C-alpha cells in the first residue's frame, strides 16, 4: 500500500477517453484500432472495447477507447464502457448518432470535444412515413452546441468520398486537428501507414479533414435543400411560351416563381395551352387574394394554389412516365449516378406493372368507363394486361413500346383519367374558395390537403381516401377560428403512417372539439 491514492480527477493520471458512435459497417472498428495503435506506438497504455453484437451491417453501435500514460511499471486499469459525464472526446459518424451521444450523457460542457459528421443516413422509421418523416437536424445542432465543450462538425462522409476514402480516415483527421490526444500529426500518419491497406487514399482524406477542421471546424447543417426556381425565360422564340411569360408577369411578384415552376411542369406534362388553363384558374385565386389584402400575407393563398394545382394537373400516369424514361438527357444522368467510366456501356431496365385500371385510365373517357363497368371483362383483361413488364428503353423494341405509351400523352385531354382528375380538381378548388371566403388561412389549408393525393395505383387510391377523410372534417372546422391549424394537423397526421392510424386519432379529437 502506497498511501492514499490521489482523488479524482487527478487520480485519473492523465487518462483520455474517446467514444465512437457509428452505424454498423461504417468502419468504427477500424477507427478504434487506429487510435489504440497510435497511443501504443507513443508508449501509452490503450484499450478499446465494443458491443458489436450480430453480424449485420446496420444498427447503431458504440466503440470505447481509453488510453493513459504508464506510471512506472504500473499499468492503468481501464474501463470497458464510457461513463456519462467523463468522456473527453465523442466521435459520431452520423448526425443523429451525435444526437444519440448527447442523449446518453456522453457529451458534457466541462470536458467533451464532439467530432461529428453532419451527413444524414435516415433510419427506417424516418424513411417509411408516407410523408416527410426525416428528423430535424437543427434539434441536434442546438443540443450539441449546448452540451459540448467544443464542436467539430462537417460532412466527413462527403469529404472522405471526394478523396476516394472512407469516413474513418476523415474522422481520424478531425481527431488530429482537435488535439485531444497529445500526439503529433506525424504519429497519426505513421499509424495509417502501418495499417497497410488503402494508405494513400486514407492519408489524403486524413489531411483534407485535418485542414478543414482547423480552418472551418463547424459547417452549418441544412434541413431542406434550396428549392430550385427557374425563372421563365425572357424570349423563347415561341409565341405561346412568350405569351405565358407575359401572363405570369401579371401575377403578384411573390407568387411568380412558384407559378413559373407550375407552368413549366404543365408545359412538360401536356402543352402550352394546358399551362394556359392553369393560369386561367390561378387568375381567379390571385384576384380573390388581392381583394382581401393578400399582399400582407405574401399572397400565401395564391402561392399555395400555384403549387398544389400544378401538382394536381400534372397527375402521375403512364404516358408521363414513359415520356420521362425516354428523355435523351436521362442516359447522361444514369451514367453519372452509377459512376460509369468512359469506355463502359450503360443500359437500363424499367420496372412497370400496368393494371387494367391504368389501361382504362388512358382510354377515351366513355370507353374506359364502359370497360370498368363490366367486371367480367375486367377480370378477363386482367389476365392479359395485369403483370410486371420489364422494358429497356435502350433496345429498339423497348423504345418503341415506351414511345407508343408516351404517344398517348398528348391525347390525354379526353382520357378517363383526365376527366376524373379535372372533376376532382374542380371540387377541391371550389372547396378552397368557399373556405377562403370564411377564413384566409383555412383556404390555404384546404389547398394544402391536395398534397395527400399522389402516386400510382394503390398509393393513389389510398391518398384519395385520406384526402376525402381530411376534407370530411371541413364542415366542422369552418366554424372555428383555429380551423386552419386543425386542418393542417389532419393533413400532417394523414402523412404519418400508411394505414391512417394517426389520422383516425386526430379525426376523433376534431369530432369532440
Amino acid at each position, binding site marked *: *500500500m*502506497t498511501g*492514499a*491514492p490521489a482523488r479524482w480527477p487527478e*487520480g485519473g*493520471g492523465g*487518462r483520455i477517453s474517446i467514444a465512437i458512435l457509428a452505424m*454498423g*459497417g461504417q468502419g468504427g472498428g477500424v477507427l478504434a484500432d487506429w487510435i*489504440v495503435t497510435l497511443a501504443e506506438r507513443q508508449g501509452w497504455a490503450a484499450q*478499446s472495447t465494443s*458491443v458489436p*453484437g*450480430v*453480424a449485420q*451491417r446496420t*444498427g447503431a453501435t458504440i466503440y470505447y477507447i481509453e488510453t*493513459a500514460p504508464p506510471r512506472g511499471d504500473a499499468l492503468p*486499469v481501464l474501463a470497458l464502457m464510457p*461513463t*456519462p*459525464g467523463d468522456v473527453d472526446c465523442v466521435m459520431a459518424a452520423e448526425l443523429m448518432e451525435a444526437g444519440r451521444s448527447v*442523449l446518453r*450523457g456522453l457529451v458534457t460542457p466541462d470536458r467533451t470535444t464532439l467530432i461529428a459528421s453532419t451527413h444524414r443516413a*435516415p433510419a*427506417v*422509421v424516418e424513411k417509411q*412515413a*408516407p*410523408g416527410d418523416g426525416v428528423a430535424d437536424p437543427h*434539434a441536434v445542432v442546438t443540443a450539441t452546441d449546448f*452540451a459540448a465543450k467544443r464542436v467539430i462538425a462537417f460532412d466527413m462522409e462527403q469529404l472522405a468520398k471526394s478523396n476516394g476514402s472512407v469516413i474513418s480516415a476523415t474522422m481520424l483527421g478531425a481527431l488530429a486537428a482537435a488535439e485531444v490526444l497529445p500526439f503529433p500529426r506525424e504519429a497519426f500518419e505513421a499509424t495509417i501507414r502501418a495499417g497497410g491497406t488503402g494508405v494513400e487514399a486514407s492519408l489524403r482524406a486524413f489531411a483534407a479533414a485535418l485542414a478543414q477542421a482547423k480552418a472551418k471546424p463547424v459547417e452549418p447543417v441544412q434541413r*431542406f435543400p434550396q428549392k*430550385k426556381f427557374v425563372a421563365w*425565360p425572357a424570349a423563347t422564340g415561341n409565341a405561346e411560351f412568350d405569351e405565358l411569360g407575359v401572363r405570369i408577369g401579371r401575377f403578384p411578384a411573390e407568387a411568380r416563381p412558384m407559378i413559373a*415552376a407550375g407552368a413549366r411542369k404543365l*408545359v412538360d406534362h401536356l*402543352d402550352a395551352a394546358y399551362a394556359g388553363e392553369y393560369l386561367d384558374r390561378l387568375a381567379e385565386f390571385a384576384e380573390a387574394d388581392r381583394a382581401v389584402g393578400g399582399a400582407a400575407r405574401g399572397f400565401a393563398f395564391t402561392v399555395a394554389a400555384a*403549387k398544389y394545382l400544378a*401538382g394536381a394537373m400534372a397527375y402521375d400516369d403512364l404516358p408521363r*412516365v414513359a415520356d*420521362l424514361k*425516354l428523355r*435523351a438527357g*436521362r442516359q447522361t444522368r444514369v451514367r453519372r449516378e*452509377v459512376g460509369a467510366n468512359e*469506355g*463502359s*456501356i*450503360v443500359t*437500363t*431496365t424499367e*420496372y412497370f*406493372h400496368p393494371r387494367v385500371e391504368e389501361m382504362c385510365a388512358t382510354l377515351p373517357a366513355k370507353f374506359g368507363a364502359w370497360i370498368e363497368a363490366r367486371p367480367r371483362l375486367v377480370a378477363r383483361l386482367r389476365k392479359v394486361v395485369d403483370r410486371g413488364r420489364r422494358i429497356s*428503353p435502350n*433496345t429498339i423494341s423497348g*423504345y*418503341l413500346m415506351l*414511345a407508343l405509351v408516351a404517344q398517348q400523352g398528348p391525347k390525354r385531354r379526353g382520357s378517363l383519367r383526365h376527366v376524373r382528375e379535372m372533376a376532382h380538381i374542380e371540387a377541391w378548388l371550389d372547396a378552397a374558395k368557399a373556405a377562403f371566403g370564411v377564413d384566409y388561412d383555412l383556404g390555404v389549408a384546404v389547398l394544402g390537403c391536395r398534397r395527400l393525393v399522389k402516386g400510382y395505383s394503390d*398509393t393513389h387510391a389510398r391518398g384519395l381516401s385520406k384526402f376525402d377523410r381530411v376534407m370530411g372534417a371541413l364542415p366542422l372546422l369552418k366554424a372555428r377560428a383555429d380551423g386552419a391549424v386543425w386542418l393542417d394537423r389532419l393533413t400532417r397526421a394523414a402523412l404519418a403512417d400508411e394505414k391512417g392510424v394517426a389520422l383516425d386519432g386526430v379525426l376523433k379529437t376534431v369530432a369532440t372539439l
Partner: protein
Amino acid sequence: MAERSFAREVEDLKLGAGEVFRGEGILAITKALLQSGVSYVAGYQGSPISHLMDVLADAKDVLADLGVHFETSASEATAAATLSASVMYPLRGAVTWKSTAGTNVAADALSNLSSGGVTGGALIVIGEDYGEGSSIMQERSHAYALKSQIWLLDPRPNLPTLVRMVEEGFELSEASNTPVMLEVRIRTCHVHGQFVCKDNRKPSYTLRQALENPARDVSRIVLPPASFVHEKEKLERRMPAAIEFVKSRKLNEIMGPVEGDVGVITLGGLYNTTLRALEYLGLADAYGETRVPLYVLNVAYPLIEEELIAFCQGKKAVLMIEEGAPDYIERDLNTILRRRDISTRVCGKDVLPMGGEYTTPVMIKGLDEFLKLHARELLGNGPPPPDPGPVLSDLRVKALAEVVPPRPPGFCIGCPERPIFAAMKLVEQELGLHHVSADIGCHLFSILPPFNIGATTMGYGLGPASASAFNVPSNKRSISVLGDGGFWHNGLASSIGNAVFNKHDGVTLIVDNFYSAATGGQDIPSSRALNPRRKTNNSIVDAVKGIGARWVRQIDRTYDVARMRDTLREALTTKSEGPKIIVASSECMLNKQRRVKPLIAKAIKGGERVVKEKFGVDGDICSGDHACIRLSGCPSLTVQHSEDPLKDDPIAAIDENCVGCGNCGEVAEAAALCPSFYRAETIHNPTAFDRGLHRLRAAVILWLETRRMRGRARLAGEQA
C-alpha cells in the same frame, strides 16, 4: 467456407514465448488454449465468442502442427457432449458457445458430464451475452454452475488474467475431476489488450492414443447406483479438492488495505467498473490503488469460505457486487456468515439494482449508498463524481429524445431475406394477418419496422415447434419461420419432424442463406460452398422430405417476390394436409459481397467483360409516398429532400452502396408500385460486339426520338 478471412489473427496464434500478443480478449483465450496443450476444441458460434471458432476454422496449419482436433459442432449440446472425451482419458478439451442460450441447449450433456466427472481438463468458454449489445434473454449462466456443480471462473477483464484463468482452469478441472466454465462478458470478449505469450504445447496424450487404447469404467456412467455415488463424490471429494486448488493458487485476489471498517467483494469480470466507481468516489486511483479493501472473485463458484470469512471478519459491513438476478452469491455469503455467527452486515442488491447491467453510474450510486450507510467518513469532501444530469435535464437535450430515431440492427443491403418478408406483407394485404412464429437468426429482424411480422420466438430452431398448438381446424393457418442455421441446429427434429408426425396443418418457411449468417457467416451442412474440411451441400429439401414432409416447395431465388408471394398464398390456401414447407434460398449478401467484390474488381481491372448492376430512382416520377420503403427497409434505399418547389415530401433515392440485388424492382412490380425504379446495367470492358450493337441501337433510337419530339415545343432547362 466462411467468407471472412482470419489469416492475420491466425498469425497471432503462432507467437512464441516472450512475444507480445496484441488483440481481442476472445483471441487471447484461443491462444491460451493452445498454450495449455489442449487436444480438442469444439463449439457453436455466436456473439460474443464467434471469433474463437472463426480463427480456429482458419488455423488448419497451426492445429495440424500441434495435433489439435477442431470441429464446428451441430449445436451446443453436441459441443458439450464432445467433452466426454475427457471423461476416461487424460485429454484436455475446450468447448465454447453463447450463453445462457447455448448453455440451455447444452444442459443435458453438461449434467451428465459433471455427474460422472472428468479425468482430463474440460473447459467451457461461455460468452455471457448480458447487458448492452446482448441479443438474448437476460439471465445468469451462474445457475448452471450451481445446479450441476461445474466450477465457474469469472476473470478480471484483462488479457493476462484471461490467459492465466484458461491455463489454471484446466489444472483446476483435473485437480477436482470437474468441468470448469470460463465466463466472459461481451465487452471482455472484444476488449483489445496485450499479454506476453508462452510457446504452444502439443497435448501430452493424444486422441489417437485414446482411440487405440480404449478404457471404460462403469462407475463413470450416469446410471444407478453410480449416479448416487457421483452425487456424494461431487460434494465430498471434488468440491474440497477444488477449494483447496483455488486457495493454493490464489485465484481470487485481495487488494487494498488489510484493515478497514468496510470491504467490497466483486466478481472478477466486474472489477474494472468497480475500481472506476471507487475512483470517482475518491477511493481509488487509475492504477488500481484502492483505499477500500477489495476481494476479487475470479472464481465465482465455488466460494472459498475460509477466504470470505477472513475478509469479512472484523468489518462492519461488506458490499457484494454481482450482476443480474438472482443474488446467488449474496445469499450464500449470508448463509456462510450466519452459520459462523459473524455479525458483518452484507449489502448487495439492497443498494444495487437486482437486474440490469452494472454500468459505472449504477456502481457509483450503489457504492455511494453503501458507504453512506456504513463508512460515511470515507467519502470525505472530494469533487463530485461525473454527472451528466444537468445536461440531460436541459430542455434542448430533452427535445432530442423525440428527434433521434431508434436504429436497431436490421437486414443488410441486398439481404435475400428482405424479399421474403416483402412477399409475406403482400400476402398479408390479400389474406389478412396470420399468426407468425419467428425463430432465432437474421430473419428475426422481420419483427421490426418496416415489416412488423412475427409474434413469438421460443429458441433456436423452434419456430415451427412453437406453432405446434395451432393445429386445429381454422380459416387461417399459422406461419412459422425457421432459418437454415436453426434448421440444422435443432429444427429438423424438433420442428419439422414434430410437425410431420403430428400432421400439423401450418406453413413453415425455411430461410436458407447458405451460412450461419447472424453469427458471422460460418458454414453449415447446407452451405453451397465447397469446404475441403467439411461435408457441405446437404439439401434442406431432401432432409425435410426424408423426415416425411410431402408438400415442399423450393424457391431458389428469393428476390423473385411475385413467385415468393404466390407460393406463400398457395401454401396458405391449399387443401393439402400436413405441414406446408417452403424452402427459400439465396446467398447471404454480406458474405456474397465479401466473396465476389474483390473478384469483380480484379476482373474489371484486368480488362475482362463484366456486367455490374445497380438500381436507381427517377426522382421526377417518385411522389414521395415511400410505399417501396415500407416493403424493403434496405439501408441503401433512402430518402432525400427534393429541389423541386412543387414537392413537399422527400423522394426515394438509392445510394452508391446498392449491390443490385433486385428487390426494389421486384417489389415495385409485384406490388404494382410506381414505375420510378430502374436497373442500370453497366458493361465494363465491353467487347467489339457490345460496342457495335450499342452504337447501332443508339443511332436508331436517336433517329426515332428526334422524330417523336418533332413539332413538340419544349422549354429550355427542363429536367432530364
